[in-house]
Structures are given as C-alpha cells and as structure tokens.
C-alpha cells in the first residue's frame, strides 16, 4: 500500500501501465519505445520501472506495439482500461 501511494504521488500522466508477466515473450518493443517506464529483467521479462519515465502517448504506443498484448494501460482518472481494447 505504501508503495502504491509512492507511485501515485510520482505519477505525472493519467495512464498507469502493468505487465502481465505470463504473456511477455521478451520481444523488447516496450523497452525500446518507453525506456523510462519499461525494462527487461534478468529473465528477459518486461517490468515497470517507473510510471512517469515517459509520456502517456509513449506508454500507450509501447502497449500497442506489444506483440502479445502483455501491457495493460488504465486511465487512473476514470478507471477505464485504455489498452488492450475490450
């Protein structure tokens, strides 16, 4: 919970991203497009290193470029899932 509030106060944009680890195939597009937000860990799986390292547009583009829809983008103001589209 404490960690959550730290992320929230640091957040600049309105999009929050999460990676579904089981879906990640280590293709690395997210890291290339939004390197301030995503990094591949030692297993080659994408992790979120910061919510505010790139703009909302870059976060969304990273999610749209993920070949397996492993990145979920949520609008924190409305709670709506922005990507993948339902």
């Amino acid at each position, binding site marked *: 919970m404490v960690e959550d509030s730290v992320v929230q106060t640091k957040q600049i944009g309105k999009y929050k991203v999460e990676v579904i680890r089981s879906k990640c*195939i*280590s*293709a*690395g*597009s997210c890291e*290339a*497009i939004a390197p301030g937000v995503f990094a*591949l860990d030692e297993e080659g799986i994408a992790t979120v290193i910061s919510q505010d390292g790139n703009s909302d547009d870059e976060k*969304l*583009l990273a999610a*749209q*470029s993920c*070949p397996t829809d492993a990145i979920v983008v949520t609008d924190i103001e409305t709670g709506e899932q922005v990507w993948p*589209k339902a």
Partner: protein
Amino acid sequence: MKPQRFIAKLADKEFFNEKFSKYVFEMEEPHRIDFESGQYVSITVDETGDRRSYSVCSNPDTHHSFELLIDHSPQGKGTTFLQNLKFGDEIDVMGPLGRFVLAPDKGEDEIVFIATGSGIAPFRSMILYLLQDLGEKRPVTLYWGLRHEENLFWQNDFQDLVDEYENFKFHPVLSRGSEEWPLCKGRVTDCLAVHDLPAKGCYYLCGNAKMIEDVNTLLLSKGVVAEDVHFEKFY
C-alpha cells in the same frame, strides 16, 4: 537506434505460394531506415491503433526500403491488412524494434540458424549481412522447417549462397514432404538430431514457441550453454 514512427509505401509484392509473400516497402517520411539485421517493425493494422510485429527480411545495408516476409495463414487483422494493401498504399510503422540481433563474435566455432515457417525472415537479413557485408568466414548453417514442398521458396536464393560461399550450408526440412523429397523429413528437431551440432556454436532460433522450446532443450542437452542460444518467438 531509437525506434521512430515513419510512413512507408507498398512498392512491390512477390507472391511465392498460397502461404507466403514478400512485401517491399519504400520509405516515405523520413526517407531512410536504419536497423540491425534481426530487428522487426510494428505496423498499425486498424483504426483503433492495434499493431502487429514483422521482422525485416532484407539486408540492413539498404536504407531506402525494407522487405517483409509474411505468412498469410493466420488471417487475423495483421495478415488481412497486409493482404489488402494496394501498390502505393501508405502504412504507419514504428521501428526498428527488438534485441534479436547478431551477437558479438566470441570465437564460437559455428553460427547456426534454426527457423520454422516465417521465422526465416530475420535470418535472411542476418545471413545476407553476415556473408555479403561482414565477410564472415566461420561456418554458417541454416536449418529451415516447412510443411510441404509447395510451401518452399527462396531455396534457389539460399542455394546460390551455398554455391558462392563455401562456409554456408542450407538444410530445408519438410515435416510432410512427399515420397520424392530427397532431403530431411520430419520436424526440425529430428533433422538436428542427426546432424553434428557444435557445443561451442552460436545458435539463433526463430518461429513458433514450441519449436523454440524443443530445440533449446535439445541444444542444452548437447552441452550448448544458454548464453549461446538466442531466440525470437513469433507466436
């Protein structure tokens, strides 16, 4: 090379067979693409912004255009979008993307490429670059698994490379080859099991996830270290 968005235009399409075609895209804005062999591009395939990834199959020494090799069989958004493109149509592309590139030469004895189906795409780019541009002298071997004879393409091009470069070997493998098929028959792993696989080789695997898992297990059982096995899963 940081990925960027660009516009490219369909300039040519080569129909190989029912399953596979090659697409040539000419750069529009900007006019130049720089990428490493093995990397892929991400293409917008519908109005919601959905994208699909495709490996560049051309040599990175060409900068005004890039080529993609497409397996049309999935018939989802990506493949139908590409299939419906007409000459001159523009596409919205993001790239280059991906870390599946040639690893630095660590003195391995041999470089081995193992593909199934459209997994050949990044390898065509890597092999052309290795042989024609880098002048690679170590043995370079390509194993390529397809289903039937009718699915085959590029075999003459790879045979030309075999004739031109004595260090290059090419093994097409058909899982459902006819009686007449003279070369390896079965899955790629069956073919690999009967060939010498150097423990100190540099291996690149590309194609479906199951093949990659199976080949990786086989290689590790033969003493190849995990760091020397590089792979890209297409699906």
